[in-house]
C-alpha cells in the first residue's frame, strides 16, 4: 500500500535515491506518477477540479492535462469514470450503476414546467436575455423561476447584451454541466439539429407581434414590471 515511491518530499527523495543528482532534482515525476496524482486529486474531490488547480497542487513540471488523458483511458468501462466538465475534471460513478446507489440518491427539488423550459432555453440559446426567453415562451418569466435556477447554481448572469438598455443575459454554469453529465454546452442533446433547423436563431418578428409581451428589459434584468400577473401560475 505504501510501498510506492514517496513523493512527499521530492527533493530529499531524489537526492537520496538518485545518484544521477542535479538534473533529476527538479525534474517532473514520471507520467505514470503524475497520473496517480491526478487520480488522487480527482478522487478526493466532489467538485470538478480544473487543470490549472491540479497543476498548482502537483509538483513543479507536472502536466496534468496529459496525465488526465491517460487516466481517463484507464477508467474506461470501469465502475467509476473520469469526465470532463468545462475546463475541469471529475470522477463520477458509471450511470448504469445508479441502481446500486439508492442510498446515496439525493432528492432534488422538482422543477416546475416553467423552470424546466426556462432552463432549456437558457442552455440552448445562451447568452440569452429575459426578453428573449419571454419571446420564446410567449409568457413572462416569473422572478421566482429565475431565482430558483440561480439558487440551484444551474444558471448565472452572463455579460450584458450590447443592445439598447444593455440587458443582462443568462448562461448555464459548470454545475449545470456536471449535473447533466455534459462536458460543454456544445454537448447538449439535439443542439446541432436545432441549429440546422434554424430554431436557435434570434429571428425578429416582422412588425410588432404581441407574443413576447414586449416587456421592456429592466436595467438589472431581474425585475419585470409590466403590470401583468402571470396568467396561469404553476
Amino acid at each position, binding site marked *: 500500500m505504501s510501498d510506492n515511491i514517496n513523493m512527499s518530499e521530492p527533493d530529499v527523495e531524489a537526492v537520496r535515491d538518485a545518484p544521477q543528482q542535479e538534473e533529476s532534482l527538479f525534474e517532473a515525476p514520471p507520467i505514470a506518477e503524475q497520473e496517480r496524482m491526478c487520480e488522487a486529486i480527482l478522487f478526493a474531490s466532489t467538485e470538478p477540479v480544473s487543470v490549472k488547480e491540479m497543476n498548482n497542487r502537483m509538483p513543479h513540471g507536472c502536466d496534468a492535462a496529459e496525465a488526465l488523458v491517460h487516466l481517463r483511458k484507464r477508467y474506461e468501462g470501469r465502475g467509476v469514470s473520469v469526465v470532463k466538465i468545462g475546463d475541469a475534471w471529475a470522477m463520477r460513478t458509471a450511470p448504469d450503476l445508479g441502481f446500486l446507489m439508492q442510498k446515496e440518491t439525493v432528492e432534488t427539488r422538482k422543477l416546475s414546467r416553467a423552470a424546466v423550459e426556462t*432552463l432549456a432555453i437558457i442552455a440552448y440559446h445562451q447568452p440569452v436575455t429575459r426578453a428573449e426567453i419571454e419571446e420564446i415562451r410567449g409568457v413572462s418569466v416569473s422572478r421566482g423561476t429565475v431565482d430558483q435556477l440561480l439558487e440551484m447554481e444551474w444558471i448565472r448572469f452572463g455579460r450584458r447584451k450590447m443592445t439598447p438598455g444593455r440587458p443582462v443575459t443568462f448562461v448555464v454554469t459548470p454545475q449545470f454541466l456536471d449535473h447533466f453529465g455534459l462536458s460543454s454546452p456544445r454537448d447538449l442533446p439535439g443542439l446541432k439539429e436545432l441549429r440546422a*433547423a434554424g*430554431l436557435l436563431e434570434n429571428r425578429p418578428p416582422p412588425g410588432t407581434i*404581441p407574443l413576447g409581451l414586449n416587456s421592456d428589459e429592466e436595467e438589472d434584468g431581474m425585475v419585470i414590471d409590466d403590470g401583468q400577473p402571470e*396568467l396561469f401560475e404553476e
Partner: protein
Amino acid sequence: MAETDLNKTLQMSFAEDQEEISVADRMAAEALIVDVDGFEGPLDLLLTLSRTQKVDLRKISVLELAKQYLDFVERAKRLRLELAADYLVMAAWLAFLKSRLLLPPDPTEEGPSGEELAAHLAFQLERLQAMRDAAAKLMARDRLGRDFFARGVPETVERVRKVTFTATLMDLMQGYARLRTRDEFRPFILDRESVFTMEEALERMRGLIGYAGAWTNILSYLPVGWENDPKKRRSATAATFAASLELAKEGKVFIRQSETFAPIEVRKRDGRDE
C-alpha cells in the same frame, strides 16, 4: 384559483361544443384538455390547438389555427369569463392576421405581409415545441445524484499559507542609515516642532529619489524619527505626499495607487520611460 376555474370552464365549454362531432374529432379535442399546469399563455394555447392539425408545425395552416383560437376565445367570452388581456390581445392580432391572409394584399398598406406574419407565428410555435422537446431530453439525461454519483467522502484540501519576505534596496539603505545615525541624533521632539514642511520633504525626496528605481511606498521616505508619533507621522506623510506630487509635476517621478487607501508608490522616471 381563478386561473384554474378559467381552465376548467374553457375545457367544459370546449368539450360541450364538441358533443355532436365525430369521435376522431373528440379525440383531437381532448388534446385540449389541459393538465393541472394549465395553458401558459396564448402561445401555449396556440401550440396545443395546432396539434389537432396533426401536421408538421412547418406546414401548419395558420389561417385554420387563427380560426380555432378565435373560436376558443369566443366560447370563453360567451361564458362571460373575464379573459386575460394576453388572450384578447392575441385574439385581436390573429383576427387582423386572418383578414390579411384572406384579403388580397393592399399595395398602399405598410408593414409585413400576412404571409410573413403567419410564417413567423409558425416559426414561434415550432421553436417553442423544439424547446419543450429539448427540455424533456435534458431532464431525461443521466443526472448527478440520481444516476451517477460524486465521491461520497471528499477530502478537505488544506490551505497552506506560504509567506515569502521581500525588501527593497531603499529599505536596506534606510536600515543601514538608521543604524549609523542612531547613536548620534537626539529625538526630534526636543528641538523641533511636529511639523515637517513640504520644502524639507522635497529636499529630502530629491536626494533619495535617485535610488527609487522600483516602485516604493512613499511612507518609506518619511524621515527617521517621524514614523511613530502619530502627529509627526501625519505631518511628514502629508509633506512627503505633497513633495511627491511636486516631483511628479516636474516629471522626475511617477506616482501610482492601486485603489482607494492603498499605499501610494513612487518611482523615478528613468531610461525605460523615454
